[in-house]
């Protein structure tokens, strides 16, 4: 411990270099934390006990194909099924195609039974939504993005459906996956659309009595419709969302490859800095050894110094990410593509650990080299 102040002084003797290195490492770790959080946001939809009990049924051929609405009654008879609602992805655009967000038409009657994790601001808002066929509910984050008020009229221009849907906001939702979504009545949509498209929802959302019933429900529903004109594919909500991520291509591979390369540049930067400062100090180290410092102690002191720089940089980068993304309205910045990013404390800790590892890897060999160098050689090198 008595060498703490010695190490600290060494760390700051070339202040400019230390600051530049901290900033450089900070930038890279900021990037790594961002990418890691982005991947988390894409791959891990908030898994609540409620979402584990939700199952989605769709047409086996693909989402662009719809199923007869009569399936709902048959699904409700499957053992373990508590509730089921028709659900339709509306698509379309709100004012401008760039204003992307999820728009669903759902059966209002059992909407809150299937989504008990969705909270409406007040019981009045809930009543208004249930009672009015043209009412809609908006996620809170979404409402903030467009500055919507209760009672406001929202018009969605159709593209999948040849109709424009005009709804009035009854209230705001939060919890589960609702924060960035928009919901209105399926019955209302069903009335508006041409009769050849009517009575055919795209998905059914099922609420299971318990998560243990889910595998049996999946099997029974799919086998029930296997030989019909519209065979189905049923899966849990989580699996359904992951399916979308895999449709985007190999996002995980892309992000991990970028992160690996970035990590490599951090090692380079740290190694370069430490090599520079060790080279400058060759003579000093010889003197320390003359004074009786062991190679092990010198090695440790050098590594601690480099760890101090790297971990400071890493934590700064991670924390900058954490507070930057909290302060920013990500939905508006990315036009709804990434509704929010939250750099978790675990990720900040991860950044610290990565920086520590980088420091050890990048300093070990140059430091080992110099700590083992015979005193006479080191002194002579200084003279050159």
């Amino acid at each position, binding site marked *: 411990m008595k060498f703490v102040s010695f190490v600290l002084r060494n760390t700051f003797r070339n202040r400019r270099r230390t600051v530049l290195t901290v900033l450089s490492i900070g930038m890279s770790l900021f*990037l790594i934390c961002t990418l890691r959080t982005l991947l988390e946001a894409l791959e891990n939809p908030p898994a609540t006990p409620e979402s584990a009990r939700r199952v989605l049924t769709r047409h086996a*051929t693909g989402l662009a194909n719809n199923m007869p609405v009569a399936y709902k009654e048959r699904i409700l008879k499957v053992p373990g099924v508590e509730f089921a609602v028709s659900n339709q992805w509306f698509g379309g655009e709100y004012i401008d195609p760039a204003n992307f967000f999820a728009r669903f038409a759902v059966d209002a009657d059992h909407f809150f039974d299937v989504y008990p994790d969705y909270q409406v601001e007040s019981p009045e808002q809930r009543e208004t939504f249930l009672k009015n066929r043209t009412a809609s509910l908006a996620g809170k984050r979404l409402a903030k993005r467009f500055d919507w008020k209760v009672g406001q009229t929202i018009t969605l221009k159709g593209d999948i459906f040849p109709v424009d849907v005009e709804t009035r906001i009854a209230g705001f939702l939060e919890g589960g996956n609702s924060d960035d979504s928009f919901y209105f009545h399926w019955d209302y949509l069903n009335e508006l659309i041409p009769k050849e498209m009517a009575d055919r929802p795209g998905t059914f959302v099922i609420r299971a009595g318990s998560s243990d019933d889910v595998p049996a429900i999946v099997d029974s529903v799919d086998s029930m419709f296997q030989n019909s004109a519209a065979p189905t594919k049923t899966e849990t909500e989580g699996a359904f969302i992951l399916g979308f991520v895999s449709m985007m291509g190999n996002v995980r591979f892309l992000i991990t490859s970028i992160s690996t390369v970035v990590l490599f540049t951090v090692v*380079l930067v740290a190694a370069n800095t430490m090599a520079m400062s060790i080279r400058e100090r060759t003579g000093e180290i010889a003197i320390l050894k003359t004074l009786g410092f062991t190679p092990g102690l010198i090695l440790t002191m050098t590594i601690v110094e480099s760890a101090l720089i790297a971990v400071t940089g890493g934590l700064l980068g991670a924390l900058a990410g954490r507070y930057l993304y909290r302060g920013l309205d990500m939905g508006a910045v990315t036009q709804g593509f990434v509704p929010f990013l939250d750099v978790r404390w675990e990720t900040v800790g991860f950044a610290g650990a990565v920086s520590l590892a980088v420091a050890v890897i990048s300093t070990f060999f140059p430091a080992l080299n110099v700590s083992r160098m015979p005193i006479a050689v080191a002194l002579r090198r200084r003279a050159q």
Partner: protein
Amino acid sequence: MIPIKYNIRSVVVRRMGTAMTVFGVALTVAVFVSILAMVRGLQSTYVDTGNPLNLILIRRGSQTETNSFFDRDVKKIVETMDGVEAAAGEIVVIINHPRVTGETSNVMIRGISENSMALRPGIQLVEGQMFKPGLREMVVSRSISERFKDTGLGESIRIGRSDWKVVGIFDAARTAYDSEIWADYNEVAQEFERPIYSSILLRTSGEDATADLQKRIADDRRLKLDAVGEREYFEKQTSTGDAIKILAYFVAVIMAIGSCFAVMNTMYAATSRRTREIATLRVLGFRRWSILVSFVLESIVLGIVGGIVGCLLALPVHGISTGTTNFTSFSEVVFQFRITPELMAEGILFAAIMGGIGGLLPARLASRVPIVRALRSDG
């Protein structure tokens, strides 16, 4: 002016430190070039698709063929319009099918009619033969056939309630059609019980006729169709690459700032080691600005070398085939990473800018070296 040779030699003398900095810049450029190669590859599939004399007719407001459907009688009206040389009614359906790697994605199946091939002369059948009308047979693009399960020549996949046999492989010269499966219109319409057209592809008699037809179709109350130029239709879908493009610039800018700091470190070290040399240059009569320019140039050289190495590192990704979902048509698009000379030039320019910015402050410091004190020092 101090000859650039001085800087190049100085860079070479400090091998290790230079190499590490250059490599840092190189990695930044390699990431930048690789991700942009992906964006360019993806976008070029849409930019290069379509014939300027072709019009795609889709249901008004539907934006894409996937969302579009209309009555087949419409074709008879359109076919006889002035300026129309040929018309092909088509149906588009999306199926969910596993990739070779296991996870499922959406593939577009196009039911084509007899004029369809003639209207798209760039598309060649490269293996097997064309499907026969009246049979559940299909031809698959080479890209899809390599990327999806059971879609090789002679294999068959289950669609709806029938088994469809792959009888031919086509090559659409890396256009958007390279991500499709084609079969006979009547067979597809029957299988999906959808006796409609998703789109009609028209060949017009000339540019004037195209513009005129677009106006007449838009104004015709009976039709309720949008007539979009085939090229325009696909160009609008280049937005598929936007998310990756934003990612590319975000990653590149952050990495570049980090690399700038690293370059600064190296250049500060370089100038402080050469304080005496710089003072000597001043004594020899070189001006301050000349020292400044010289060191900035040295840093730019460092950057350019890094940029070249970075491009070389990125080069192996060229031609790699990958895919993503086009969320406009809601189906898989297969594309190849594409590194063009322009992209490499951009990467090197990017590196030179990093070098320039990183070298500015150290160079300014160098140009202000106090001559007498520097000469007396032992540095």
